[in-house]
């Protein structure tokens, strides 16, 4: 339609219309960051659900000699592999244990002859469920001083926390959308009031309400899209920065925060969605307001 290219209405001079692109930019920025958080958390919790929840760690106090240590590890591993429900039980090599402790104890942990704990990585099957109390007692009988670390209970808590954060992010997205729509409705109403004379002339010349509505809608779309694009351009470096710092901090517990083309497609769709929402809100507002006139 020609009205997409040309506006019969004067440019917004009212404050609310001038501040709309900035508001949309901010809202789109928030939405994209929230959406990114949502996607990252989703992936993280999925990984925890499938990967880590089915694992546990057995640890034992070290003995005096390496031979005794190997003996202890073998005895405990034998008990574990004989237990129904255990898929895999593997002693963690001493070098790997030192590596895991290095962040806490410093680089000297590799050279110093410190008594490092003995660890066994255990992977569980879904069925049959392993009675961890019973398993702990059998292990303790073979190798005194053995403890079983169940990742499941605290990981479940972590997962439910992550789910709560996800819900929060989703609610924020909804709120942001609502604020944007309300802002567009108010800006459109202000525009209708300011341009009352122009609209009356358009009506007297024979314009339908839909013609006037399409003018407001086209402008709202353009304004929101401009703001949304700005929000997107600001959000992109933020996401890269978060990914960069997360990659330095975590290692281990948190998976890498990286976004693929599909994710970037979703982020790029946010300004477009904001512009569409603005278009529909403006159009509806004009049709409703004019429809109430005589």
């Amino acid at each position, binding site marked *: 339609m*020609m009205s997409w290219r040309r506006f*019969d*209405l004067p440019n917004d001079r009212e404050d609310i219309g001038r501040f709309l692109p900035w508001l949309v930019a901010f809202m789109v920025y928030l939405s994209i960051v929230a959406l990114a958080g949502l996607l990252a958390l989703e992936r993280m919790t999925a990984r925890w659900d499938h990967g880590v929840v089915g694992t546990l760690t057995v640890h034992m106090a070290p003995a005096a000699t390496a031979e005794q240590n190997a003996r202890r590890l073998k005895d405990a591993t034998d008990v574990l592999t004989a237990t129904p429900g255990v898929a895999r039980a593997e002693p963690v090599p001493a070098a790997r244990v030192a590596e895991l402790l290095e962040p806490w104890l410093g680089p000297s942990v590799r050279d110093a002859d410190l008594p490092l704990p003995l660890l066994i990585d255990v992977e569980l099957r879904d069925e049959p469920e392993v009675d961890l109390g019973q398993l702990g007692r059998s292990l303790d009988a073979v190798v005194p001083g053995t403890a079983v670390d169940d990742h499941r209970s605290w990981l479940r808590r972590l997962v439910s926390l992550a789910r709560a954060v996800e819900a929060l992010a989703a609610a924020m997205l909804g709120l942001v959308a609502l604020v944007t729509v309300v802002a567009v409705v108010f800006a459109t109403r202000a525009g209708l009031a300011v341009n009352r004379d122009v609209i009356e002339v358009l009506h*007297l*010349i*024979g314009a339908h309400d839909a*013609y006037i509505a399409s003018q407001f809608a086209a402008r709202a779309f353009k304004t929101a899209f401009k703001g949304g694009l700005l929000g997107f351009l600001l959000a992109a470096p933020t996401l890269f920065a978060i990914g960069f710092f997360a990659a330095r901090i975590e290692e281990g517990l948190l998976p890498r925060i990286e976004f693929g083309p599909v994710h970037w497609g979703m982020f790029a769709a946010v300004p477009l969605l904001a512009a569409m929402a603005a278009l529909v809100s403006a159009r509806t507002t004009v049709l409703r307001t004019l429809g109430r*006139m005589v």
Partner: protein
Amino acid sequence: MAVQDDSGGAVVRFENVGLRYGLGPEVLRDISFSLMPGSFHFLTGPSGAGKSTLLKLMYLALRPTRGLISLFGNDTSRAPRSELPQMRRRIGVVFQEFRLLDHLTAYDNVALPLRIGGVREDQVKKHVMELLAWVGLKDHMDARPPTMSGGQQQRVAIARAVIAGPELLLADEPAGNVDDRMAVRLLRLFEELHRLGRTIVIATHNEALVRRLGHPRMCIEDGRLEIRPGLADPAAGAPSVRLAFPGDSEEFA
């Protein structure tokens, strides 16, 4: 559907129309008349008599306090809001205070009725350029109304009123801001529309102009209307402007 009445083919019919603004006195009282297609009337009366008010009733900017107004055979009081644009497109109006859109160029102002009617842009350009040339504003097509003189604005307003070839043309003091030579030239536009079978009402208090053209006149005094016949043979020569309007081919094939 529009409600058809028994207006006998009249373009405009008033029946006992009265109008008051708010709680004020009745500005118009018991106005009854019919305008047949192709008629040309001047609307005269002292300042404040109600000429603009009568025209506003005709172009649907005001609703009568009482009485019946029908346009093109449709009872306007019973027409739903959604049908008003279609009726208004058949009416061209030169507003007394022009009511041009200040942020649009002269070209875009004149083009407005065509664009609202969905006319193709190449057609819009052809007709707008032709008309701007006729009213002597070809060199000002990119000017915005606030930078134009009163006379220039008036010519833009007239061009906008006639561009779509309206069936009914209502002009409120269209020659108030131009010299007599330009007034005669602009009136030729109205004559040309008249020649094409359109119905014309021009409010003016330029007696010279009224006498020169010799059309019948509607006089308002004390809120009442009286129609006086004009000269049998209007003194105006054959109009020297030939305009074609978009939509003519469909409507008058």
